[in-house]
């Protein structure tokens, strides 16, 4: 049994684990008038506040319910906007103090050759904001030579320190890949027929040496990532802070995390096969859920992993001794070559909102294009602005009314909420689609979607 199950008697084989330190509170019975209420009369919600023995007082409209003498009453249909109701209840607590604090959110953008770009962002989800806990997702992006290296990880929701695992796994995996792929460039002028990707049956090796080198690097990155997760736990074993919070000495399972790694390079420049976009290669390896997918210029979607799942959603695998064995890794590497429109690597906080992947990931791409996050357009902020009357401004400058000019300018520009002038915002957004991505991840609404959200996309800016 897990070491968490302190509440369960040692000899029991109960499958239940009781979380230490959390208990329901039991308010003393105060309102005897409620107990004596007429049991045949349904009580409208507004009365329940006087019998509110729990202290919670949600603002709900009064609801009546029909009574019946035989069995439970049938629910009346009332108009209900769950989003609106929930909205008022969500708390926005700051990231808590303590070791291993993770920023609320972050983003990154790297321009690439061949008119491509890679951007990524990770934001703390509504659930963690509501509970006042840390973001558990992590991502890293690095480039070396012609390679772009991406790692995305999601710390297990049930594990208090999984965020450490997510960060350590990403950073160490990317470091390995950067080291291995430095100087590893394909022979100039190589062609890439389908047969080039032939694999040795059963063991997951590529027959082609140059490709197999990358496969080996991915395997090594996964293994080192798991090593680093374990090392991170060992390093913290003597620290009482962790033991106090966990109720036991910290162990690597407390840092459980998923991991997706992907590497990209261009095999042939644009025009080589009369296509306007270059020919890309992506190779990936993963343990856990989330998704990695390649969208080509024909909008075809190629999934680059088979997410781990159980009988019910929410059940997945994490990095472990078992998951980095040859038996596992040999089935976990995927590769694809094509004319890349966009590569997506994301945690399930986003992936779950785009099911089924075929069609919905196209939808995601369109969404990102419309928000000017990806694609060939320069981002513009979507706020209205009025043209500046330069003549008027010049006159006022001449009259030396500097303060007047400023307020006049502000009024003319119509900036009420922005503290920076719109032109500054424009410049900022024009340079950083990563920031727009971050804002979008933080704000899009899907019912029941309140996990941390992390999305990395490598995309072509070539016009479609």
């Amino acid at each position, binding site marked *: 049994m897990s070491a968490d199950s302190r509440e369960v008697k040692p000899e029991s084989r109960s499958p239940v684990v009781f979380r230490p330190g959390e208990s329901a509170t039991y308010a003393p019975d105060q309102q005897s008038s409620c107990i004596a209420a007429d049991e045949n009369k349904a009580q409208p919600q507004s009365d329940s506040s006087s019998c509110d023995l729990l202290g919670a007082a949600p603002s709900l409209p009064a609801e009546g319910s029909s009574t019946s003498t035989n069995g439970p009453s049938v629910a009346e249909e009332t108009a209900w906007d769950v989003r609106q109701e929930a909205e008022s209840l969500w708390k926005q607590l700051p990231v808590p103090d303590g070791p291993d604090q993770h920023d609320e959110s972050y983003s990154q953008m790297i321009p690439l050759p061949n008119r491509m770009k890679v951007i990524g962002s990770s934001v703390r989800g509504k659930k963690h904001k509501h509970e006042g806990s840390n973001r558990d997702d992590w991502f890293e992006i690095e480039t070396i030579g012609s390679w772009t290296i991406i790692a995305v990880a999601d710390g297990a929701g049930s594990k208090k320190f999984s965020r450490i695992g997510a960060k350590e796994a990403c950073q160490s995996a990317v470091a390995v890949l950067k080291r291995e792929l430095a100087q590893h460039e394909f022979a100039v002028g190589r062609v890439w027929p389908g047969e080039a990707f032939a694999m040795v049956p059963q063991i997951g090796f590529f027959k082609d040496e140059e490709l197999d080198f990358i496969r080996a690097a991915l395997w090594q990155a996964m293994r080192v990532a798991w090593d680093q997760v374990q090392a991170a736990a060992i390093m913290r074993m003597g620290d009482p802070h962790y033991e106090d919070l966990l109720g036991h000495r910290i162990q690597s399972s407390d840092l459980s995390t998923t991991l997706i790694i992907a590497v990209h390079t261009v095999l042939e420049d644009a025009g080589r096969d009369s296509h306007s976009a270059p020919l890309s290669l992506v190779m990936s390896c993963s343990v856990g859920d989330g998704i990695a997918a390649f969208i080509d210029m024909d909008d075809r979607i190629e999934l680059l992993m088979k997410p781990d799942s159980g009988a019910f959603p929410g*059940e997945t695998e994490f990095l472990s001794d078992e998951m980095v064995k040859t038996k596992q890794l040999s089935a976990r590497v995927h590769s694809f070559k094509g004319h890349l429109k966009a590569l997506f690597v994301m945690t399930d906080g986003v992936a779950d909102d785009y099911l089924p992947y075929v069609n919905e990931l196209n939808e995601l791409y369109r969404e990102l294009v419309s928000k000017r996050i990806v694609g060939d357009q320069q981002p513009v902020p979507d706020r209205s602005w009025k043209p500046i009357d330069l003549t008027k401004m010049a006159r006022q400058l001449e009259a030396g009314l500097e303060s007047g000019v400023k307020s006049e300018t502000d009024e003319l520009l119509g900036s009420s909420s922005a503290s920076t002038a719109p032109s500054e915002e424009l410049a900022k957004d024009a340079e950083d689609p990563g920031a727009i991505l971050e804002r979008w991840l933080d704000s899009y609404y899907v019912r029941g979607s309140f996990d941390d959200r992390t999305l990395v996309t490598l995309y072509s800016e070539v016009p479609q």
Partner: protein
Amino acid sequence: MAERRLPVYLLLDCSGSMTGEPIEAVRQGVRALLTDLKGDPMALETAYLSIITFDSTARLQPLTELGKFKEPSLSASGSTALGAALKLLRENVKSDVKKPTETQKGDWKPLIFLMTDGQPTDSWQHEADELKNARPGNIIACAAGPNADSSMLKQITEIVVQLNDLQPDTLKAFFKWVTSSIRTTSQGIGQVSNDTPINLPPPPPQIQIVP
């Protein structure tokens, strides 16, 4: 982008032995459960409730989203058709709950609470076996009071708890714990590894875990 629901089923014994204070405490408990859950945004967005009551027969209030769920009117009389209740549960879970497929995420693993204060009076064994085979989700059974039989419940599920009596305070504590468990589950929606046992809040002193 289908929404992902947490289906919650409550099976409540409304037999004659529950008459008076016990059934009133159950009413209060359900009312408090609804009020408390409706104050939790994660439960509001994901939890769907269904209540099955059973006495001489069993009946079901269909799976409804928490925000729209109306408190049932409960009364106690008659015998204890537990088998009928289990059958209703199994059939409705089968038709209600969406399994994950290539094209949809599926509902979260259902949470099922069963509370009974005495021996079943119908043929329940077969239904209990069918239910176990169906693996509908996490089932927590509660043997409420001195006449309840926890070993009987152990044939339905491994997770069995016991209430010493049917006092209002005890039943209130039970429903408080059910509420807390539902909240914890709707909050803990996120990953677990495939062999992780269910995570529930520690039960209060009035509830004993049956080993």
